[in-house]
């Protein structure tokens, strides 16, 4: 037998037919091709920039910018550097993304559940909303809100008062801002302590239920801890908080917080547009929970609310979270459309104005794209971690 074995050994393929060497060969070709491509691009770029007199490097970031920005979360004026415009833009991008994600999630969940409602008219209205707004380009929606709706609001002098000191006109929305007085910090810290205490309380209650089966009214006691206690102290101390109301002085409103129309239009459009996609995600997630689960919960005697909270939502969330993440990412990336109406996000300020003034296209483009890549990778990493925690633990 043993001498037959040697005959049965597969003959060694020729070197150009061996998959191992082939793979190596193709990859070497790819590396050489790619390397040549990159080197030639870098070379061309450098020589082109030299011939056009564009300097390279990041020295421009320390030069004074010489332009003002419409809305800035940090102090900014003409004398600040180009480097600072980057952070102003970045913060504005994060602001609109954060606000957009919050409102779009809210609207999306409501509409997603409404589309599944057993109330015919509610379901139809939700369907019409979803089908209309997700099939219209976002940029068009932004223009509509900005140029057709907000621009046609009454001017500053005919400003609409929405009550509670809120003013609304074509220069934006003016909201009273809270001014804390002596002792308000105590109320604030009580609020923070309340939140921390609630976390521990919930853990303790969970443990106790697991051990003894007894339930503890966590919801109401945490309401009391977080809101009740600070409120009582607040009232006892004689309400140490006053409001700064916007008032018409000269040509514009002074005081309070002003929300520029660019932000409003962008927020409205992003919320309404992304809300439709989130609604569809939510609907798919809830539909993915089999009807047997609902029936089993009912058979156990759980109330409708508890069925939703303890049985359906936790299972639906597993299906919802991954597509929801990509919607959040889309929203963050879509917030770059701000530049079309002049909301000072990073693309408008840094890739727009700063690039036009300094001409350093390569550095600025790389920095801006780097920001979006970082945001994308961070959100998807966080969501992957979250997803892993929520994922079904299978046997």
């Amino acid at each position, binding site marked *: 037998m043993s001498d037959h074995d040697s005959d049965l050994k597969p003959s060694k393929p020729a070197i150009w037919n061996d998959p191992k060497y082939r793979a190596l060969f193709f990859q070497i070709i*790819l590396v050489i091709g790619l390397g040549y491509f990159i080197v030639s691009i870098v070379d*061309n770029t450098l020589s082109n920039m030299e011939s056009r007199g564009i300097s390279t490097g990041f020295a421009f970031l320390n030069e004074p910018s010489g332009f003002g920005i419409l809305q800035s979360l940090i102090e900014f004026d003409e004398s600040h550097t180009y480097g600072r415009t980057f952070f102003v833009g970045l913060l504005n991008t994060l602001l609109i993304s954060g606000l957009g994600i919050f409102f779009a999630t809210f609207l999306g969940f409501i509409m997603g559940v409404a589309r599944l409602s057993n*109330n015919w008219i509610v379901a139809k209205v939700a369907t019409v909303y979803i089908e209309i707004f997700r099939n219209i380009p976002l940029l068009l929606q932004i223009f509509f809100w900005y140029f*057709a709706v907000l621009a046609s609001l009454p001017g500053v002098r005919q400003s609409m008062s929405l009550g509670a000191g809120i003013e609304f006109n074509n220069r934006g929305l003016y909201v009273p801002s809270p001014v804390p007085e002596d002792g308000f910090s105590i109320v604030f810290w009580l609020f923070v302590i309340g939140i921390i205490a609630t976390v521990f309380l919930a853990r303790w209650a969970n443990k106790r239920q697991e051990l003894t089966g007894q339930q503890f009214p966590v919801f109401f006691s945490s309401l009391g801890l977080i809101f009740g206690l600070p409120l009582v102290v607040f009232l006892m101390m004689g309400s140490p908080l006053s409001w700064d109301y916007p008032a018409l002085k000269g040509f514009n409103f002074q005081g309070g917080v002003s929300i520029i129309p660019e932000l409003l239009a962008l927020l409205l459009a992003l919320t309404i547009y992304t809300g439709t996609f989130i609604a569809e995600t939510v609907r798919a997630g809830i539909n993915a929970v089999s009807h047997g689960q609902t029936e089993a919960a009912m058979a156990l005697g759980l109330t409708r609310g508890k069925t939703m909270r303890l049985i359906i939502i936790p299972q639906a969330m597993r299906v919802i979270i991954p597509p929801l993440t990509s919607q959040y990412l889309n929203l963050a990336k879509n917030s770059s459309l701000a530049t079309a109406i002049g909301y000072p996000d990073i693309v408008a300020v840094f890739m727009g104005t700063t690039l036009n003034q300094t001409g350093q296209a390569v550095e600025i483009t790389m920095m801006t794209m780097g920001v979006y890549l970082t945001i994308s990778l961070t959100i998807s990493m966080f969501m992957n971690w979250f997803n892993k925690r929520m994922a079904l633990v299978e046997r």
Partner: protein
Amino acid sequence: MTTETQTYELGNHPDLEPPSNTTGIMGWLRKNLFSSYVNSVLSLFVFYLLYLYIPPLIQWLFIDAVWTGGSREVCEVEGAGACWAFIDSRFTQFMYGFYPKDLLWRPNSAGLLLIALMIPLFIKSFNYKWMLGGFILVIYPIIAYFLIHGGSFGLEVVETNKWGGLMLTLVLSGVGIVASLPIGVVLALGRRSEMPIVKSVSVVYIEFWRGVPLITVLFMSSVMLPLFFAEGTDFDKLLRAMIGIIMFQSAYMAEVVRGGLQAIPKGQYEAAQALGLSYWKSMGLIILPQALKLVIPGIVNTFIALFKDTTLVLIIGLFDLLAIIQQANSDSAWLGFDTEGYVFAASVFWVFCFSMSRYSIALEAKLHTGHKR
């Protein structure tokens, strides 16, 4: 009280009518609108809101609207609704941009040719769909280029800066999808390749383009592309936008195709190998035909997204449908009819996107055979 009691033999009782409040309109209303207190209040509230907003909207959109007229005066009548005369007088521009009026037959015939070629794709008994599809994807763009751009066959050249309107939107999204499909297929195969360098190059490419917004890509292609190539190479604006869109779109396309590749059972790969097919043969003859069939709905969805995204080219100064409406809105002869312009643009986009999404849903239902067990 006179109640007649009648006795029946066991099992002979005639069927009773269902309770009157569970059938007919009343039954439907009770079940779907007024099933509980909360639902009743909700229904009435929604109906009230609809009553408040829908009739005035219809009044403005259709009943009081001014449909024709050459100038804004026709719309400045007391109680006039939407000014469709504005759209009417600018319609050609909205469709074709600044394309010369006497040459409009060229884009028109390109469009008609495409429609004529597409019709057989929807006929069930037509057996050469793959061949026709290939013709539309490969040969048709060349024909359309010569028709719209001209330059040979005795056709006058129409520079791309004269292209615009809906035509440009369609050209951009069409080119974007047709060119990104093969690149996407290669990238998807690369991402699933066992060669580490090929795989990582594909992953980096895909994740890079998927991580940045299209606007930055368009900015990049408009300011940086001229720097990348040796002096003297001149790209026109439209070509730059197209390159940006193709690079961006191919990453998304790759992910769609990858979804299809992953849905093919491993047995198919193994069977192809067992038959002794080479890599390209097993992909080209066994895997890709199945995978691409699976992802047609996904490709249609990407197309919808791209179709909406082409509006962004207005930021780098191209005149697509939205840009040209935006420009018309700021025309002093027709100032103040922004809403009409946007409503018109929205309805054009909506009709395209909605019908495509319905088509994709129908396809998905039709193609859901075999692999889903």
